[in-house]
């Protein structure tokens, strides 16, 4: 990510404008720079977990394409392995996916079009997961309006492709890896998301939300029941960061007088 790809249509008048498929390709290529590898490493574990849960390969693949949320899949297969009743599985999965609500809500305004049908909107929302969110939330606003949706779709289809291949690979391999490698695989998510979140910081609100979220997580854990703790961290930390930014803005405006 040292050389961010050009996101604005900088071509001069002589050059032909970039088509929707051209933007789709750029989004896909952006995914291929790093996010697809992150997805691949994450979904190796999910494929192997599905194997352990004794489901078919087709089921494992369908879970990736349908649920399309790594943590929810880990909970789903973990609960199947434990033999939890299906309604309990559904509740845990739903609680873990609450995180998708603020992510989708904050991204959807950049992906909607005036004449967009409900089906396209629902499909677009289905493809939003944490990796797609962190890669696009700060990029989409700077892009030409017509390019946002095709670029995003290229990005997330790249992620889906990588995750699907990797689910199959993880299911087939389902091997015990050395502890060092297993630790490395589990570390991909935190280091990637932290670096991507730091990269996304444009205004104080972003940095504050990041810091508050990290600090609040261990502080709230003993007081909020499991499943709701992340939601509490998000709402309290995010609101504090938002108010902090308002306060800074007001102070700046006041100082200018």
């Amino acid at each position: 990510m040292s050389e961010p790809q050009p996101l604005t249509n900088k071509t001069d008048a002589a050059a032909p404008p970039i088509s929707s498929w051209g933007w789709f390709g750029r989004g896909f290529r952006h995914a291929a720079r790093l996010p697809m590898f992150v997805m691949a490493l994450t979904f190796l574990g999910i494929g192997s977990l599905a194997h352990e849960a004794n489901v078919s390969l087709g089921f494992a693949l369908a879970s990736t394409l349908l649920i399309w949320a790594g943590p929810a899949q880990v909970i789903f297969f973990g609960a199947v392995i434990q033999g939890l009743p299906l309604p309990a599985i559904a509740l845990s999965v739903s609680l873990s996916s609450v995180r998708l609500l603020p992510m989708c809500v904050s991204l959807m305004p950049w992906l909607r079009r005036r004449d967009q049908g409900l089906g396209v909107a629902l499909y677009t929302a289905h493809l939003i997961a944490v990796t797609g969110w962190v890669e696009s939330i700060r990029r989409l606003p700077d892009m030409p309006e017509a390019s946002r949706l095709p670029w995003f779709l290229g990005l997330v289809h790249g992620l889906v492709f990588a995750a699907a291949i990797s689910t199959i690979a993880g299911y087939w391999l389902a091997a015990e890896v050395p502890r060092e490698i297993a630790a490395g695989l589990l570390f991909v998510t935190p280091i990637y998301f932290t670096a991507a979140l730091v990269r996304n910081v444009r205004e104080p609100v972003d940095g504050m939300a990041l810091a508050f979220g990290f600090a609040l997580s261990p502080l709230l854990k003993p007081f909020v029941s499991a499943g709701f703790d992340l939601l509490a961290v998000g709402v309290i930390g995010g609101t504090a960061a938002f108010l902090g930014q308002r306060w800074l803005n007001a102070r700046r405006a006041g100082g200018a007088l």
Partner: protein
Amino acid sequence: MMQLDQWSGGLWPYAALVLFGFLPSEVWRMLSVFIGRRIDEASPLLEWVRAVSTALLAGVVANIILTPSGALASVPLFARLGAMAFGLGVYAITGKSVIGAVLAGEAAIIFFAWWFGG
């Protein structure tokens, strides 16, 4: 109570996947389509929702680092935080390279896992 692995072949497991995996997760995305359509791009509400998402994701990361599971738990806390700091240090000196951060952090955590595993 019905268990997934007791459901014999055919399409039944997939029906269970849709009912107990896909729909409970997807309901939040569906809801977002109806909420997101009403929010203006310039609305402060959008900034708030983005801040909530950022804090939530930071909380996810903190959870994994502070209370890890599996093999990552065999690496002491200061080494997990050290690997994170090393990755972010490389991010800073490589001109904001997320790839650099991931590679450096991975190298550090694998080294620590080996070092503290013996």
